[in-house]
């Protein structure tokens, strides 16, 4: 089918302001929007830039805004994306724009690192694995799925307002460890999240949950962290 692509373009070496690039391509209904971007890059205009790698929603490279909402370009099919023969593609919001669809991810990863996203447990585990019951394992399963694509954080109005807010992705990562029965760093992480730019910035807006390509219950995870802070209990 014929598709009209409207892509937000910006080249820091040439342009003062972003502008719309418009392209007409031929695409299959079942193609990914990422394929359409590749088609533009490979056959019409090689200067178009975007990040991508796995092409099946697993690496988190290609978070962009399609028709106004955050998605992974490789996880949205053309047939679901076309509106009146047209697809609009823009960079995600809230992070500094670098070039075309590429934004600076550094602030995002800085927040990630801030929540100590690694197992903290200094006791000697011995020769064999630490034991963990299936129930304990299930407790934090949802948040282990995160691929750090930033769809959630960059859809959050609280984050747009204040980039210092650690954002849903970092909280999801913290949650993954806080609720892991093998971890002993919950108190340290909760300390970080109790700061003014921690979980309390979350206004329960749900944009994050709605866009998470891994279907993580982001707001729920944030809520569980808030509850742990209030009740002093991890349950």
């Amino acid at each position: 089918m014929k598709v009209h692509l409207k892509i937000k373009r910006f080249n820091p070496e040439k342009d003062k302001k972003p502008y719309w690039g418009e392209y007409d391509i031929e695409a299959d209904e079942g193609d990914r929007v990422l394929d359409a971007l590749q088609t533009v890059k490979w056959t019409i205009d090689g200067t178009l830039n975007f990040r991508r790698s796995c092409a099946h929603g697993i690496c988190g490279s290609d978070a962009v805004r399609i028709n106004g909402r955050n998605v992974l370009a490789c996880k949205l099919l053309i047939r679901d994306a076309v509106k009146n023969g047209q697809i609009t593609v823009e960079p995600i919001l809230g992070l500094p724009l670098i070039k075309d669809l590429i934004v600076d991810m550094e602030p995002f990863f800085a927040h990630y690192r801030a929540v100590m996203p690694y197992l903290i447990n200094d006791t000697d585990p011995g020769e064999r694995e630490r034991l963990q019951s299936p129930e304990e394992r299930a407790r934090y399963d949802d948040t282990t799925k995160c691929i750090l694509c930033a769809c959630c954080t960059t859809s959050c109005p609280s984050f747009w307002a204040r980039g210092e807010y650690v954002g849903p992705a970092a909280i999801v990562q913290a949650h993954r460890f806080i609720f892991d029965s093998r971890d002993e760093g919950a108190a340290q992480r909760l300390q970080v999240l109790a700061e003014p730019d921690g979980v309390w910035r979350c206004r329960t807006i749900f944009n994050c949950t709605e866009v998470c390509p891994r279907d993580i219950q982001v707001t729920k995870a944030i809520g569980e962290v808030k509850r742990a802070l209030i009740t002093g209990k991890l349950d």
Partner: protein
Amino acid sequence: MSTLFTTVRDTLRYKGREGQWLWVLHRISGLGILFYLILHIYDMSLAYFNVPVHEQLMALFKTPVFSALEMVLAALLVFHAVNGVRVALLDLRPALWARQQLATRLALIITVVIAAPTIIIMLIYTINAHLSAAATTAIR
């Protein structure tokens, strides 16, 4: 403050769902109510501290323009209350998270159900008051 600009711009650019718009409204309504309340309490305190000014202000509040503003405020207050309850319940009762889409819709419906009659009643009062005032002047 430039972030105020970016948030407003990004909020308009981003195609969020109900949750986003309800948040915007909640914020605006909260600030609106606060502003109104400061004025209102100031005014009422003058009932002790400076009665003549109090009386003047009361007269001002009875003018049609202020009546209209008050109706808007009524809607905002009702919305803020209902939506506040939604947010508070969602936050305090995590089991409800799964139903958040429904919750946003319910909040809007309840707001309308409460606010609409309220505003109509206020409208009737206002019109009546102005009619009878007109009548009184006419008789005089």
